[in-house]
């Protein structure tokens, strides 16, 4: 324990960030490690992927303070419209007081329930704090330094992580991204990762009142690797939230998405699409928490499982007692393409208010035989027919993506994966 504490004390240049890291390091010891008796951890045995002791003795380089020209923090590239999007290193965010303000938010504070949650915040090597403003007034010099070159669209921010590769002596990598969106702002956020090692990340999106946020997340894990991605979205009054998550690869993935509806008038649409190849285990846990009424949220999860992969989905719609006028929906559809693939779906509703409309649906099965016969009668081989049908299954998800670049990218990722599954 002391070794990592010393590393933090020695390497972390920002006093304020040092405090934050040490505070979470203490929490690592205090909080429980998730085990399979916990409802939300039934399908992932985190012990297989993370050993806290190893994580605490591993060498770390807290490089986030070093920026390479306009590229952004070390290990990741962040692009956003200059002026409207202010990109800070976590060090600067801590020094400027933003970070402390953020972690004192109730939703952010409450999201640390288990020791691995605290571990991410104590040990992250790649971190970034992005402030998105409504108008171009990100004037201060210090901030402009990090505001990087313009992206194609004016409201687009791209976060690209360098591939998390195997390097000697390192089993784990941690990252933490915060996107703080001012009320009324309009933004498309994309982030993409590729990993070979076990990585643990957190992305917090604070959507201000009346903001419009589209978030595209594209993740690919190679076999032997594991990615736990925890996304927390706090939706302010009258905000519009759309998320698109595409997950592929032969490695294991656990995606957690927590949406907290903080005020009336929120409309949130959460979409996920994933494939399971090889021995991959994909586990998705979501929570649509309606803390305030008069809001709408919908979630759809589409999965295609091949080889001997397994996919699981545990989704909860929770409606607080005062959240009247809630309209929440959840659907999970899974295609099983091979005999050895397996799927689990647990859509849960926990409703305390009476004036609500909540529903969920789940279906599991294989490609419709009629579709196959139709395609094959037109000379398409069985394999190709299967690929086409599975691509069609993802069609709506791809069509819904907010920009053509990410749509092309996601489509390519998914169809390459489907080809590998079907061949």
């Amino acid at each position: 324990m002391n070794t990592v504490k010393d590393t933090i004390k020695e390497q972390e240049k920002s006093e304020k960030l040092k405090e934050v890291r040490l505070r979470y390091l203490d929490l690592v010891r205090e909080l429980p490690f998730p085990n399979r008796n916990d409802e939300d951890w039934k399908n992932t045995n985190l012990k297989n992927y993370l050993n806290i002791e190893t994580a605490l003795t591993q060498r770390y380089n807290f490089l986030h303070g070093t920026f390479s020209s306009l590229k952004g923090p070390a290990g990741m590239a962040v692009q956003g419209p200059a002026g409207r999007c202010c990109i800070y290193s976590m060090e600067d965010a801590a020094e400027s007081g933003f970070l402390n303000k953020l972690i004192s938010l109730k939703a952010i504070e409450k999201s640390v329930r288990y020791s691995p949650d605290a571990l991410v915040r104590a040990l992250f090597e790649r971190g970034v704090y992005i402030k998105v403003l409504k108008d171009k007034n990100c004037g201060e010099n210090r901030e402009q330094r990090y505001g990087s070159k313009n992206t194609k669209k004016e409201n687009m921010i791209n976060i690209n992580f360098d591939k998390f590769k195997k390097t000697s002596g390192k089993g784990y990598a941690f990252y933490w991204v915060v996107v703080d969106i001012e009320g009324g702002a309009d933004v498309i956020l994309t982030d993409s990762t590729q990993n070979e090692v076990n990585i643990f990340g957190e992305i917090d999106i604070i959507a201000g009142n009346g903001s419009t946020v589209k978030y595209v997340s594209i993740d690919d894990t190679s076999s032997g690797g594991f990615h736990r991605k925890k996304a927390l979205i706090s939706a302010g009054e009258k905000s519009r939230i759309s998320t698109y998550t595409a997950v592929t690869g032969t490695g294991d993935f656990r995606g957690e998405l927590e949406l907290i509806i903080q005020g009336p008038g929120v409309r949130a649409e959460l979409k996920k699409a994933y494939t399971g190849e090889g021995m991959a285990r994909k586990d998705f846990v979501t929570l649509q928490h309606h803390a305030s009424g008069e809001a709408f949220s919908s979630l759809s999860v589409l999965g295609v499982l091949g080889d001997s992969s397994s996919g699981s989905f545990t989704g909860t719609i929770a409606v607080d007692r005062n959240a009247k006028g809630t309209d929440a929906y959840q659907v999970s559809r899974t295609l099983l393409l091979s005999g050895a693939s397996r799927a689990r779906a647990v859509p849960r509703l926990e409703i305390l208010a009476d004036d609500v409309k909540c529903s969920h649906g789940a279906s599991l099965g294989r490609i419709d035989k009629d579709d196959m016969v139709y395609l094959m009668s037109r000379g398409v081989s069985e394999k190709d027919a299967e690929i086409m049908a599975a691509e069609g299954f993802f069609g709506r998800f791809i069509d819904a993506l907010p920009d053509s670049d990410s749509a092309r990218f996601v489509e390519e990722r998914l169809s390459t994966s489907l080809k590998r599954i079907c061949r």
Partner: protein
Amino acid sequence: MQNILRLPDMSLQEQRFNMPESEYKYGFHDPENYVYKAKPGLSYEIVSEISWLKDEPEWMQKIRHRALDYFLKKQLPKWGPFLGDIPFDDIYYYIKPSEKQETDWKDVPEGIRNTFDKLGIPEAEKKYLAGVGAQYESEVVYHSLREEWAEQGVVFLDMDGGLREYPEILKEYFGSVVPYTDNKFAALNTAVWSGGSFVYVPEGVEVAIPLQAYFRINAKNMGQFERTLIIAEKGSRVHYIEGCTAPVYSTDSLHSAVVEIVVKEGARVTYSTVQNWSKNVYNLVTKRSLVLRDGLMEWVDGNLGSGVSMKYPGAILKERGARAEVLSVAMASEGQQQDVGSKVVHMASDTSSTIVSKSISKSGGRSSFRGLVKVIPGLSGVKASVRCDALIMDDESRSDTYPYLDINSPEVEIGHEATVTKIGEEKLFYLMSRGISEIEASKLIVNGFIEPVVKRLPMEFAVEMNRLIDLEIEGSVG
């Protein structure tokens, strides 16, 4: 994440005790005048005593002891309602109310007979039942089966009688569907079971009218642990109905039954329950059937009473063509937690299952649907559908849905749907604008909501069910 909304269980407990007794029609109790009452609490001595009093074969006594070991070892479940308040040490595990079992109501001790008269059992028997078993505390006090069925070889006995007269059958099937290692309360039941029904329907016999068992708890702090075994041979058909009530006391009683059903090739068993325990009863029941080739198991489950209910009637579809249907209605009122649902395991190809659940929460009650559909690897042609609808009557109540779908074969069609709604203002307005009072309108809506399940009950039960629900609503609306 699921803990965010957990209700404080203590307050539910308190609410339950504060219920006015007059609301519950079956809340009366008789003076205690028993032939034998064991000391409260659970021990090897009590278990041996029960076995000795019943003059059981040694193998049964051994099973009881092994089950007790398991019960003591096993923890209370961490999920679902809070069970930490069950006073295991204060409960009477065995009470023998009368010297022997009767086949004529006239011979049943007067006090007990009056109770069953009040509950309307003898009258119902005359009208529409093929056979009746009436259990009072730990023992079955009355049993009858119409001659025409007895002649065809149908056996309808209490479980103790079954053990005496058909020990080989019992030895083969006892614990084969629900072993004592299944869960803590199945272990408890196996250790201290007493009473319950033993039904055997020979090959090809169709019992056209229902058999009924009625369970009554009378004493304070009573634990009732009946054990039922139904075996339906090839091509046979039987409908079994159970009903249950208890007096209202300020301390808790425990009802923990085990029901095992074996549905053989092409047979069909319907098991209907109208559970109306008083609100001081913990109802923790394990019910399961094993369905063989082309067999059909139907569970029709009405849960209106009890303080805490945990009941998931299930089916193991073991051979090709087996089917299961589960229809359940739950109503959770003030101080009640109805944690009910169903469990279906598909273990063979071309099997199908349907689960339909309707729940109503009112006056601060909590109803949860908890279901499991599991398909093991390597199957094809499996179909399963789960549908659960919930109605919330006011803003103090709560409704949860926890369906688990665990699918390990691709050649399946699994569908699940759930909705939660409140009584629609528009529907109420529509009805009330036509001169129907608010109470009547609410009743109409609720009865319409549960209609798909109620229509599957025998007429008399359907009427009773509707009436009970009407009574509950009258207490809460207006």
